[in-house]
């Protein structure tokens, strides 16, 4: 579908001769918004690096089990002969680093840290990604509807957003996570915990994106292309999904990449409070929360998952910033 600022052949043709001299016809063909954005994005080396890291992390998360199998890593194998229980630290320096355990072992059980980081990646990314998807879906739909229709619909949805924003989210998250028991929706064990976390994190953060989408929709709905569509007889759903939504993709995409890291940290916070993923499944947040009690004895234990979260958050943030710059030149 057309975007309001799409360059047309006529505009290109109107450019001064000097600029066009020596340029073949095909090169001055109109470029779509996506192409322009991609070009800008490619030029942004930092954002590209962030993007590559994000892709690698995603691959690691998706293929974490095969990777563990290939390299013979077991995240739940105890090696308590490698730790000094009295000092709450692995034997040897650097958190028990060795060729067998390149990132060391954890101080209570002697489990391989590398294996746990890899095994924890899919949990952390799945929870963060799932929660982001959930909040983006709810937020976009409600935001577009509120912004486009206005009136009492807008009032209802906006008050709903206010209500959700007023929730003491963390307390709510703790009580929900703690009270949901096995058999809920026919789920139990780890899948249940993951679903609960996705729900808790995603369901309560949709108003943030909802407000952004609503505001954006309100500015767009008065624009000429919308009026053109309506005057040609297009009705609500068509305008919403074919005219408005494509113009909202940029802010949504940017926002999504920026809240993924927030959600990773939120998962860490919930694990830290003991309502996250149940042991023995590794998750970055869970590892970090264990490490808090032991950091003076074994700083490495905190350093490794902390670094993993740091790299992920940074990569997503860089990617998000780059996307925003690429998609929305005015923000520069």
């Amino acid at each position: 579908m057309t975007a309001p600022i799409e360059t047309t052949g006529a505009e290109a043709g109107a450019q001064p001769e000097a600029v066009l001299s020596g340029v073949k016809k095909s090169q001055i063909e109109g470029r779509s918004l996506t192409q322009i954005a991609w070009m800008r994005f490619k030029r942004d080396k930092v954002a590209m690096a962030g993007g590559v890291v994000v892709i690698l992390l995603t691959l690691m998360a998706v293929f974490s089990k095969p990777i563990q199998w290939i390299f013979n890593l077991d995240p739940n194998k105890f090696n308590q002969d490698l730790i000094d229980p009295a000092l709450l630290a692995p034997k040897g320096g650097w958190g028990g680093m060795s060729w067998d355990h390149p990132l060391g072992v954890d101080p209570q059980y002697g489990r391989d840290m590398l294996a746990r980081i890899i095994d924890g990646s899919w949990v952390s990314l799945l929870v963060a990604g799932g929660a982001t998807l959930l909040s983006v879906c709810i937020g976009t739909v409600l935001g577009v509807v509120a912004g486009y229709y206005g009136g009492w619909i807008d009032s209802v949805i906006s008050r709903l957003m206010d209500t959700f924003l007023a929730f003491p989210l963390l307390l709510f998250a703790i009580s929900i996570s703690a009270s949901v028991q096995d058999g809920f929706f026919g789920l139990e064990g780890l899948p249940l915990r993951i679903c609960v976390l996705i729900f808790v994190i995603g369901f309560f953060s949709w108003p943030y994106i909802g407000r952004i989408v609503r505001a954006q929709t309100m500015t767009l709905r008065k624009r000429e292309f919308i009026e053109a569509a309506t005057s040609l007889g297009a009705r609500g759903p068509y305008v919403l999904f074919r005219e408005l939504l494509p113009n909202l993709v940029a802010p949504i995409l940017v926002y999504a990449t920026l809240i993924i890291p927030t959600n990773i940290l939120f998962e860490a916070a919930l694990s830290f409070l003991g309502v996250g993923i149940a042991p023995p499944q590794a998750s970055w947040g869970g590892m970090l929360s264990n490490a808090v009690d032991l950091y003076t004895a074994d700083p490495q234990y905190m350093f490794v998952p902390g670094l993993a979260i740091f790299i992920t958050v940074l990569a997503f943030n860089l990617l998000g910033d780059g996307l925003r710059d690429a998609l929305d030149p005015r923000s520069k």
Partner: protein
Amino acid sequence: MKTRRVTAGVASVLALSLGAAACGGGGDDNDGGGNGKKDAALNSIVNASDKKGGTATYEHSDVPDSLDPGNTYYGWVQNFSRLYGRTLTTFKPAAGKEGLEVVPDLAEGLGKSSPDAKTWTYKLRAGVKFQDGTPVTSKDVKYAIERSNFAPEALSNGPTYFKAYLEGGDKYKGPYKDKSAEGIKSIETPDDRTIVFKLKQPFADFDYLATFSQTAPVPKAKDTGAKYVQAIQSSGPYQFQSYEEGRGATLVRNPQWDAKTDPIRKALPDKITIKFKVNPVTVDNNLISDKITADAAGTGVQPQTQPKVLRGKLASQTDSSYAGATQYIALNVNVKPFDNADCRKAVQWGLDKQSVLDAMGGSPKGDVATTLLPPSVNGYTKFDTYATEGHKGDVAKAKAALKACGKPNGFNTILTARSDRPAEIAAATATQASLKKIGINVEIKQFPSGKYFSNFAGVPSYVHDNKLGMLSMAWGADWPTGYGFLDQIVNGAAIKPSGGNNLMELDDPKINKALTDAIANTDDAARTKAWGDIDKMVLDNASVVPLIYRKNLLLRPESATNVTVTQAYLGMYDYLLMSSSK
């Protein structure tokens, strides 16, 4: 103890949770420091001194429930309050096992019991006075018990064992509501120096109850209920010079105290100060830099401090004392498959307890437990019904037990743990890993410790509905005898619809009867032996899986003198003896 209130059980668990934040000692034996050896204060008095003077300074990371002897459940206040309140009996201020011995304090001798152990008579020492010079009478003791046990509207913190055991205890409304001159009828005061307790059931541990700070005399004329803590009338060697709620207190010598009436207190320091709400790591650092005499909580240094004190020369100034508590897993006999004794035995044989201990923090946190009673409780008998090499578990025997229970390939079950207790979760994680080897798949579920007994693990219907087969548990006694330890956790009568502590739901008539019989037995030796026998019966039933005997890692600064660990008070230092060279 049927009528013991739920809150009391919760409170003792609360007191335990303070212990959970602590860790114990251990590691290498290291000389030097001129302050004795590592663990020297466990069995001897370190830096023994008879020198009067100086100031003993205490700090605490929290506040007490109350310093009022009639309104406290905390072990350290029980210990500390002996400085300003003399109880009928108390634990001997002495090193090692001697510290578990009950000796007369305000009373001339131990209680004289009727043959049926239902009537107990104490004779008070002559010449004991309050700080204002009025003589202490048996009526003051009676009044102290009335206000502390029967007036929850004003003083709600303390245990209510007197209420539970005294005849008519359920009817008497307490001194603030019942203004009659005679008070509770089952405590008689025929003259100013005699006090007689009439119980509704035989109770041979009564001398232990008489050690509770609740028997420290309180003059009725000076009592102001909950506000009494602001103006406590001392009967001991120290009186309050100042007291600030939530901040601290300063104690100075009580001129009316006469050493001739008090054979157990040396009362060496001239002054004693205590400060509350000090950051726990600051308390540790003050101990290390010798700025204070002791951490009043007595639960040991923080985990972050542990490597610091165990690595260097400070190690010789540490004592790993038994905290009087056992960490164990309760196997609920009403949740399948643990209704089958062989399935329970599979867990007993299969569990690698050494791995559990290492995960919890190794030897500083405790020793591997094979009995329910910890070593610092009267009646502890050493035995190991499920002995395996190095406590590492025996896969073959566990598999045989699984076969006998009809589940040769193992089974799935759930293990609960308290989410705010990292050591308990560590124990659960290690349990999970070690049981996996014999095919028992354990799922760990975490619950907040504040509601653990009232809403989750202590509610049989919830446990059954959610099939919580294995329940993490830690328990310490209110008084250090087998009865004080066992009755609330293995007696069938302790199963409650909510807030119970018998998490196994163990209701074995033989065990119940053995408890009732033993507590009625006035023969000390026979009674003490009985506790070990009951412990064995519980382990034969296999529903309790003892994990570790918990320990505290205490640090004694160089200036602290007369330092010894008292086993009777949860393994903290004895504050009656403790003095300072500063």
